[in-house]
């Protein structure tokens, strides 16, 4: 499903200063895997996830999603691929503050061609109910707890029935109980839908939730 071939990413801060975030990474992730990428802050985990998703252009190397070189696609096709195939859960609060839960979950359909609004609403409602938020359909992000917000984000990530779910530190702002609840939810989604999951976390302890664990340090994969 995912192939990274000798991928490197270097950020240019100024003419004199460049920061290598990912160094020469080669990685294959098969369809249906639940890969947990662990590593300390600054180890290149988030950049690796962005490279997989086509959110940042690699300095060198190739990123293939279902054998399609993501960075050879024009912007419109790349966006369509993200919209149809990839679901995102971010580390930071990523709900649009001016939209309620239902509208936030339906947001990806706004960018899809030929989305049926009635069907989208039905699916968004169903997903929120699955997340235990049936009473929060019309609540705004500010009216939700951190855990509830992250559940809405997960529902949004699943809206277009993606083949790949990318999660960047999805539990970093949550307390321990909620953290395990959310991780359990990821495992449940993976088991029920068979979606490929790539989850980044700084907590080595959470590696046990996946079917495979990768450790990064200094922009390289040090253990797999």
């Amino acid at each position, binding site marked *: 499903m995912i192939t990274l071939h000798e991928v490197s990413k270097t950020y240019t801060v100024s003419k004199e200063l460049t920061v290598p975030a990912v160094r020469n990474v080669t990685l294959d992730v098969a369809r249906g895997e639940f890969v947990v990428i662990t590593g300390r802050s600054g180890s290149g985990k988030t*950049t690796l996830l*962005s490279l997989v*998703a086509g*959110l*940042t*252009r690699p300095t060198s190397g190739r990123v293939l999603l279902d054998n399609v070189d993501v960075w050879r696609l024009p*912007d*419109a096709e790349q*966006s*369509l691929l*993200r*919209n*149809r195939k*990839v679901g*995102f859960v*971010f580390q*930071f609060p*990523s709900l*649009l*503050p*001016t*939209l309620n839960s239902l*509208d936030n979950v*339906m*947001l*990806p*359909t*706004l*960018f*899809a061609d030929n989305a049926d*609004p009635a069907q989208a609403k039905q699916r968004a409602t169903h997903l929120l109910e699955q997340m235990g938020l049936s009473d929060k359909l019309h609540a705004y992000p500010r009216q939700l707890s951190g855990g509830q917000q992250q559940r809405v984000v997960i529902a*949004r990530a699943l809206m*277009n029935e993606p083949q790949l779910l990318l999660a960047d530190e999805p539990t970093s702002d949550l307390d321990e109980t909620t953290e395990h609840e959310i991780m359990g939810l990821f495992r449940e989604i993976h088991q029920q839908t068979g979606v490929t999951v790539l989850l980044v976390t700084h907590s080595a302890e959470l590696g046990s939730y996946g079917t495979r664990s990768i450790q990064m340090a200094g922009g390289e994969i040090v253990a797999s």
Partner: protein
Amino acid sequence: MKLIRLAISNLAGSSFRSWLVFFCSALMAGFVVSGTLVIRGADSSLRLALERLGADIIVVPKGNSQRLETALLMGIPAHMWMPDTVVDDIRAVSGVEAASPQIYLSTLRGAVCCSVPEMFLIAYDPDTDFTLKPWLEKNLEGGLALAEAVGGSLVFVPVQDGALLVYGTSLELKGTLEATGTGLDQSMFFTFDTAFKIAEESSDLAVKVLDIPPRTVSSVLVRVGMDQDPHQVALAIAEKLPNVTPMETSSLFQGQREQILSLLNSVVALLGITWLLGMGLTTVIFALAVNQRRRQIGVMRALGARRTVVLQSLLMEAGLLAIAGGIQGIAIAALAIYLFRPLIVRLMGVPFLFPGFLPLAGLGLGALALVLVGVLLAAAIPIVRVSLQDPAISMRE
């Protein structure tokens, strides 16, 4: 959910910034409309007044040119007399095609025998007239009979009087001329015979006798031949008749025209400053807005929004504010100019004509389009920059 709903909800979410751009748009549109209304209103007023005169040259007794201009512009009655022999003398000047005399009168102030105080009255000679004739033929199927009159756009028959009383004589108002915004709108036109009838009856019906000196006229309207230069004809009249002043209508209201020109310069300068400030402020506001919403933009890109969709969504926000603010600014500016037009006339010393609905609607739409383009251009600079950024970079900052 549609993109427009997302744009509206984003605008509602940052009300202070939205109000600022709304205010800038209103200001920009308001200045365009008010500036254009004032300049165009003054200019078209003068142009219509000149068209109404319908002559190439107006000959008045020497030293009365300024008084006539004031009378025509502001409707302040002017009395001037010269022997009626000048009419034939003028006709005899080479290049003169037609010459028609007029007599200038006015109603009395505070007298029951006159419906309207101090109204400028213009009596014309129906046998030689060429200025009112085309209008009369078109609108009244012929000329005015005895005791009939036509008035400027502001002349009406007072309800309590039932007729227009001029020195006690009842006149029937047969028609109303189109508005010019000048003193002609408050003036009334009738034939020489009606003027003499009023004068004759005034000794019995009015508190004061209307005195028209025998065998005199107030002015002579001159039309020159097809290939004649009005300036040369005016010089020839002045040379032949030293006691009169021939006024070329093309150079009438020169003072007012210069005033309009200087006003136009001020308006253009003010517009330039307002637009520069408005667009600059809009750029800054949108730069701040997109900077604060970089993450949100990154998230939208990650969820599959194409670069053009992000661009469209943010420009839609700018466009909505420009339209809403623009409409508000246009409405307020037009209403203010309409309500305060007497003040504008007084302050500027030039006549003013408020346009009809269609030209006003055209101006409003034009101003709205200008503001829309201006705001979109101003907002586009930061919006394009952020939309070109890698989503991952947007989300990191």
